[in-house]
């Protein structure tokens, strides 16, 4: 049981890094990244390929983060003139392009067969399953670093600028700030964090293939940010934990519930996840965090703030 908890915590740590990255991009800066899983996959594959080529963990991680951040910057630069909804579909498209490339360029990525035997950095701690605990410690360190980076960015003048950009890019622009640069930088930093998550994922599983990187990963990250409260970094940690516990904890449901078939239970689980998401949005819009700022929420006759 302890060992399984270690597994779950490792997954929570990785999920939390993804959620922090999304919070930086969307929560703080208002940039919807529906292609999150694409950047995550890119980071995982880059780290895996570099690790397999014999690069050390630090070099592999750095390489993955640089490559992914560059792609993120390119996507953000390409779509900087687009309204929120359009960025959503461009990033979604980018994610799809990544998936198809990983699937079809088998000379590099192993195609559908994936990349097995990825060497991972180890931190062997004493005791049974020590290497799992050791890896968890590495993930927690990475999470802590990611948290510090995002939190510092949020508190720095840069962070205030990002919030200004999110709340009203026209205002931010007239303030003479280089909105485009801020958006691109924030998006690229977010993508670098996604690559960090990807590298940890690749190392954790030791085997990656395209079917691990489906849009549901993006959905989970959004759920974590919503549950945690958009814009609130401490909330995000809680949110990622709650979401992963719901997803993985519901596995235990079928050890207890025995009156529906397993395939039906699996469908039921996803229904509950969807319903939980909606209920959270309706009844806990501020999420579990406290820094959620929202106005005009209680006026049914007020139209939604203009989306552009």
């Amino acid at each position, binding site marked *: 049981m302890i060992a399984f908890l270690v597994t779950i915590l490792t997954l929570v740590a990785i999920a939390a890094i993804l959620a922090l990255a999304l919070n930086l991009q969307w929560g703080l800066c208002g940039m919807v990244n529906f292609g999150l899983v694409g950047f995550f996959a890119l980071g995982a594959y880059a780290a895996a390929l570099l690790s397999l080529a014999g690069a050390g963990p630090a070099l592999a991680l750095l390489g993955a983060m640089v490559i992914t951040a560059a792609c993120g910057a390119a996507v953000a630069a390409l779509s900087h003139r687009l309204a929120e909804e359009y960025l959503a579909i461009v990033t979604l498209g980018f994610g799809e392009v990544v998936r198809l490339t990983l699937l079809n360029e088998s000379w590099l990525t192993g195609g559908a067969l994936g990349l097995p035997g990825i060497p991972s950095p180890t931190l062997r701690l004493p005791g049974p399953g020590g290497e799992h605990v050791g890896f968890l410690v590495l993930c927690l360190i990475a999470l802590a670093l990611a948290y510090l980076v995002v939190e510092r960015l949020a508190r720095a003048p840069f962070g205030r600028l990002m919030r200004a950009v999110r709340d009203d890019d026209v205002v931010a622009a007239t303030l003479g700030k280089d909105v485009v640069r801020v958006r691109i930088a924030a998006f690229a930093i977010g993508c670098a964090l996604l690559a960090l998550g990807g590298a940890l994922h690749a190392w954790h599983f030791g085997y990656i293939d395209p079917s691990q990187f489906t849009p549901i990963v993006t959905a989970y990250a959004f759920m974590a940010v919503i549950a945690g409260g958009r814009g609130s970094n401490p909330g995000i940690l809680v949110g990622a934990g709650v979401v992963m516990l719901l997803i993985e904890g519901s596995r235990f449901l079928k050890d207890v519930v025995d009156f529906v078939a397993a395939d039906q239970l699996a469908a039921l689980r996803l229904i509950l996840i969807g319903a939980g998401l909606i209920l959270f949005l309706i009844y806990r819009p501020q999420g579990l965090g406290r820094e959620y700022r929202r106005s005009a929420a*209680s006026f049914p006759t007020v139209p939604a703030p203009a989306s552009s």
Partner: protein
Amino acid sequence: MSSDVTSNPLVSDAALEVRGLRLGYGATEIVKGVDIAARRGAVTTIIGPNGSGKSTLIRGLAGLLRPLGGSIWLEGRDLTALPAVRRVAEGVGYVPQEANIFRNLGVAENLRLATEFVPGRQSSARERDEILALFPDLAVRGALAAGRLSGGQRQMLAMACALLARPSILLLDEPSAGLSPRLVAETMQTVREVCDRGVSILMIEQNVAAALPVSDQVVVLVAGRVRLQSAADRLLVDHNLHRLYLGEAA
């Protein structure tokens, strides 16, 4: 805070009466308890510096914001709880600033929509002709998308649409905004004419110089509160008041 002029609702000659109205977005209160009485058959103009809450106030009167407190009465009926979509049938006409017509719909469709969804306030053909006669500039092709009209034509179309639903009070949000000086004068003249035909008017204006001559009554709004409510001619001659309440805006 109370205004200089207090009205007695029972014996009021006010078309629209506002008592202790508070409006805002979320926790932010912008209009902080105002009392206004817009006299029947008169032009009442609300002036005040930027950020004084004029636009919030008029949106609240139109029903686009739910009041945080206070009440709104039109011809003795309580409108406070009614949303915008119901106030029009009660006789509230509203011409927003700038986005005051359906840009992607034709001119004819705009005019048709003016009354199509307002139960019981259809104007007769004669009234209709009379109203449209006030706006000669609108003699354009009906299928023309309203967004392609000039700024002045749009303002005219918007007012015509509001009038077609035969309002008891017409709320105008800065009718002069974005118009050339010649058009401002024309617009103000039209406002006066409309009022003279028996429609009470409550308007917001930044352009005090243009608005005062056609106004009967002036309300000065500062920081969400009514600082002064008085007859327009009094304000027009009182240069101290001018400086004091209107500052550079005058």
